């Protein structure tokens, strides 16, 4: 088939699920971030226990053309440890807030991982051979008595079982007073930004003892604090441009060429509010939890509590598109405030940049890059996709009950009120502890990674 593809035209099937089956979730196992690398071959997860697990996609078996390669564990390591700052009486959580991959430059892979206070650059490298035949050492490492050596030999490299090693190459510490919520690598591949609640810093990947502050919204008097930074990202192509979102639902675009301290935005994106609709909850639900540029950089997507909005960088006064994720929650805001769910931070993502289409299994077409589908999570282990072209949307569920490979997932529907149809679920039956906050889309293929509280689901489209 040669499909233009859309959220509904793609038929999603269960592929794999990782993690423990039991319902008793240890806090350390709560997944806090999910990220594919630039080729999609590697998939990294971070958790509340400060651990990173990296999965690698199997090389595609050309004869087994009905499924794409599976993801298997490639490396796992402890990225961050819990700390206690005695000076400030602050407990520093080891939870990994974000992982961002560097584009691959050599045989090794590099990623940045961050907790609330410290960013680390990790090198993940493979070792598949080791030197053998030393003259002065035994194979087990013990030194030989030199007097017993009668002949000399040349040590050689011999193959060994693949070992994947992760080592911290840089530690970027002590630059954030508040809690880091974002890291973003610049398109120059030399610098990156880190954002906390009130400040954004610019780093050079090679330099750990210095960082430039580029945004500071801390008021002189903390009593006047009205707004915090919630997310930040570099433009995918312009290395001088970045955006940051706020708890008041605004996005500011800044140009680093304008001044050293980008406190004055170049553009301010804000949707005007209807004053008659204003309530106690308005500001809280307008807080932006994620911002993502489209691959071209022409658009950006924001996620607030109830919706996903697409903005055209050339239009500041309103979004070009708005998609309701779970509008039925608007009449539940009181209880969602009481159980703190109203503060849940959902992320969002675009479909991959290259649209690869298989035709007859022998010829492959690459359609031009299109950001036409957006994905985001919801409650009850539901996640949603919106097709910008067809305007259709779909709700799917990440559940072990649907785990037959190559069986197309059944769409879900929530009944807001009134008579519940068969197969619909009523709002009051939704499980608000089952949140899908983190999702990721493979950069080139229709493969998605969806994180429930402590499990990672991988879905792929049904290949003919």
């Amino acid at each position, binding site marked *: 088939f040669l499909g233009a593809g859309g959220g509904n035209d793609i038929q999603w099937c269960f592929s794999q699920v*990782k*993690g*423990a089956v039991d319902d008793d979730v*240890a806090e*350390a*196992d709560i*997944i806090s971030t999910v990220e594919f690398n630039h080729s999609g071959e590697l998939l990294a*997860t971070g*958790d509340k*226990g*400060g*651990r990173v*697990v990296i999965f690698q996609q199997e090389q595609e078996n050309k004869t087994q053309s009905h499924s794409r390669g599976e993801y298997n*564990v490639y490396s*796992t390591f*402890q990225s961050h*440890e*819990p*700390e*206690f700052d*005695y*000076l400030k*009486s*602050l*407990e*520093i*959580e*080891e939870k990994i807030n974000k992982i961002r991959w560097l584009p691959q430059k050599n045989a090794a892979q590099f990623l940045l991982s961050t907790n*609330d206070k410290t960013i680390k650059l990790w090198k993940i490298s493979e070792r598949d051979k080791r030197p053998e035949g030393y003259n002065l050492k035994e194979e087990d490492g013990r030194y030989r008595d030199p007097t017993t050596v009668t002949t000399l030999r040349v040590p050689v490299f011999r193959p060994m079982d693949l070992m994947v090693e992760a080592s911290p190459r840089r530690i970027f510490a002590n630059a954030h007073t*508040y*809690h880091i919520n974002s890291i973003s690598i610049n398109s120059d591949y030399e610098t990156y930004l880190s954002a906390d*609640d*009130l400040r954004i810093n610019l780093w050079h990947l090679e330099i750990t003892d210095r960082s430039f502050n580029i945004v500071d919204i801390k008021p002189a008097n*903390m*009593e006047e*604090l*009205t*707004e*915090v930074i919630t997310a930040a990202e570099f433009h995918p192509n312009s290395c001088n441009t970045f955006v940051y979102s706020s*708890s008041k639902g605004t996005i500011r675009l800044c140009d680093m060429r304008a001044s050293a301290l980008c406190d004055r935005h170049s553009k301010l994106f804000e949707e005007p509010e209807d004053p008659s*609709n*204003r*309530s*106690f*909850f*308005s*500001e*809280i639900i307008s*807080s932006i939890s994620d911002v993502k540029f489209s691959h071209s950089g022409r658009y950006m997507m924001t996620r607030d509590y109830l919706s996903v909005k697409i903005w055209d960088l050339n239009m500041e006064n309103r979004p070009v598109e708005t998609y309701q994720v779970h509008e039925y929650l*608007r*009449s*539940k*805001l*009181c209880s969602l*405030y*009481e159980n703190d769910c109203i503060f849940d931070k959902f992320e969002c993502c675009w479909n991959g940049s290259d649209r690869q289409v298989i035709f007859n299994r022998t010829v492959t077409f690459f359609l031009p890059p299109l950001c036409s589908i957006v994905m985001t999570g919801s409650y009850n282990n539901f996640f949603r996709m919106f097709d910008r072209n067809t305007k259709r949307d779909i709700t799917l569920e990440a559940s072990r009950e649907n785990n037959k490979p190559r069986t197309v997932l059944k769409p879900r529907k929530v009944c807001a009120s009134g008579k519940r149809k068969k197969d619909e679920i009523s709002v009051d039956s939704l499980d608000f502890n089952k949140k899908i906050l983190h999702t990721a889309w493979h950069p080139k293929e229709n493969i998605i990674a969806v994180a429930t509280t*402590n*499990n*990672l689901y991988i879905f792929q489209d049904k290949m003919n």
Partner: protein
Amino acid sequence: DTQEKETITPERAEEAKLKAKYPNLGQKPGGSNFLMKRLQKGQKYFDSGDYNMAKAKMKNKQLPSAGPDKNLVTGDHIPTPQDLPQRKSSLVTSKLAG
């Protein structure tokens, strides 16, 4: 005469519910209070200054250990590093890798 009934949005109805439950809820929606709470995440009330001064004063006495209420940090009760919940890193491998 006709009276126009004002339709209440779902959001406003929820707000009324919340205010009925918590009449003392701050007038400022969202705003400073919950932002400040967010910025203070992770704060524990161990004061190293108090601790060391108390230690100096009571050289010959046993330090008062935490009473049944570990959150009590005023008066003579001196929180000690031992009172703080143990923060050990997970030595266990993630179950995702299992």
